[in-house]
């Protein structure tokens, strides 16, 4: 009985999962691009820019994800037209940028000074040196901590539920009200789906980290 319901509802859950993953990919990409820029400005930029970046980080890290979602969905849409999915990408993506910039900043700072110096000494300008020498090294070091960010943002996508994005958690709620029950089972299955995606993502990032790790710089290679 439960399994029949589950089977018939499965397409909805799968669809919800793809929406959640789509949201995750968009928000992480936004966070990655902006987080990288923030980190570069914070490490190499003028102090005024640094101040702006720090302020941005403080604000977006200080406000709960739910409040950001509501702020962007109910609030900003008063002024700029956008759907709930876009609002979720912006709210969670900007927040993720604040967290990711911390990761990247740490990585930039741990690239030894001599690397920048050697690049500048051969005639690269600052931007070239950052792009060709610093970023490739810093990104490698960021993969480990970035894995945590991936996990926490995957879970945060469920919060987009509150502004009506029809992602996995909201699909679960729909199914529960449509089928009048099966709550434990449905949420159990949904939890399992998040769990599996989380595990798969962590595994893939771990693989990536190992594949890109340089001889002499393997951190986690005890597997």
């Amino acid at each position, binding site marked *: 009985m439960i399994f029949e319901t589950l089977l018939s509802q499965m397409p909805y859950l799968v669809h919800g999962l793809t929406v959640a993953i789509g949201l995750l990919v968009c928000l992480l990409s936004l966070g990655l691009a902006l987080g990288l820029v923030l980190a570069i400005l914070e490490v190499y930029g003028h102090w005024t820019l640094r101040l702006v970046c720090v302020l941005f980080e403080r604000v977006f890290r200080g406000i709960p994800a739910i409040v950001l979602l509501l702020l962007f969905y109910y609030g900003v849409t008063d002024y700029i037209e956008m759907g709930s999915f876009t609002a979720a990408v912006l709210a969670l993506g900007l927040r993720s940028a604040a967290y990711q910039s911390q990761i990247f900043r740490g990585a930039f700072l741990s690239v030894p000074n001599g690397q920048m110096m050697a690049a500048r*000494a*051969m*005639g690269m300008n600052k931007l070239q040196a950052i792009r060709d*020498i610093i970023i*490739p090294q810093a990104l490698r070091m960021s993969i480990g901590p970035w894995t945590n960010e991936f996990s926490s943002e995957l879970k945060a996508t469920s919060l987009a539920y509150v502004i009506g994005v029809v992602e996995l958690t909201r699909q679960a709620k729909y199914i529960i009200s449509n089928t009048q029950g099966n709550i434990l089972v449905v949420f159990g299955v949904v939890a399992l789906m998040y769990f599996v995606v989380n595990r798969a993502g962590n595994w893939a990032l771990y693989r990536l980290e190992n594949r890109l790790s340089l*001889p*002499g710089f393997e951190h986690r290679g005890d597997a």
Partner: protein
Amino acid sequence: MLLRVENIHKSYGAAEILKGVSFDMAPGQSKVIMGPSGTGKSTLLRCINHLTPPDKGRIFVDGEELTAKNLNTMRQKVAFVFQDFNLFTHLRTVENVAIGPRKLRGFGKKAALDLAYKELERVGLSDRADAYPAELSGGQQQRASIARALAMEPKLILFDEPTSALDPELTGEVVSVMNKLASEGMTMLVVSHEIGFARKAADEIIFMEGGKIIEQGPPSQIFNAPQQDRTRAFLNVIEHGDDA
């Protein structure tokens, strides 16, 4: 003159590190700068390519003055070899050598790699081309960084104590590469206390102390008949093996 160093001054806070240093280098010349620790040798070298911009004084390379504007093109003519190598950690040896030609000199990928292999051969490292820096010995890393400098086809190479981070048994391989470059006519300005290199390859020794040049001349004169007591005392120490 290939290099003209004119009245360079540099202070860090209240401490005046360089107190007006001037000298010239003709093409093909090799000069060795010596002097006690903390005297400003590294600072001078870094002022020459503005890694540390001087407070006062001017640098000319091939008659053109080095300024904030032409900095990056001028640095391509003045290569720098560091005491601690600073090879790019994420690039294989051959890529370390190729990156300059590729990114700064407009070479295509193939041409840059060809040049890189050629320069690696010059320093005797062809067989380690695919290794990462962390997989090389100190001597190999320094030779790779010399190849990286050579691949810029610079007018002048600045060396800041290229052997002092190496175990004694590894200095020889680096010194012999440097000897070879000098004999091929490369213009080199070397901060080093390697007496062997200084005697054999240098056209002139510059002896610095307290932020100034206090004596300069051909190795035979400096080593055999130094004019200044300070020079004599210093040479005594390094020639008799006490660590300078």
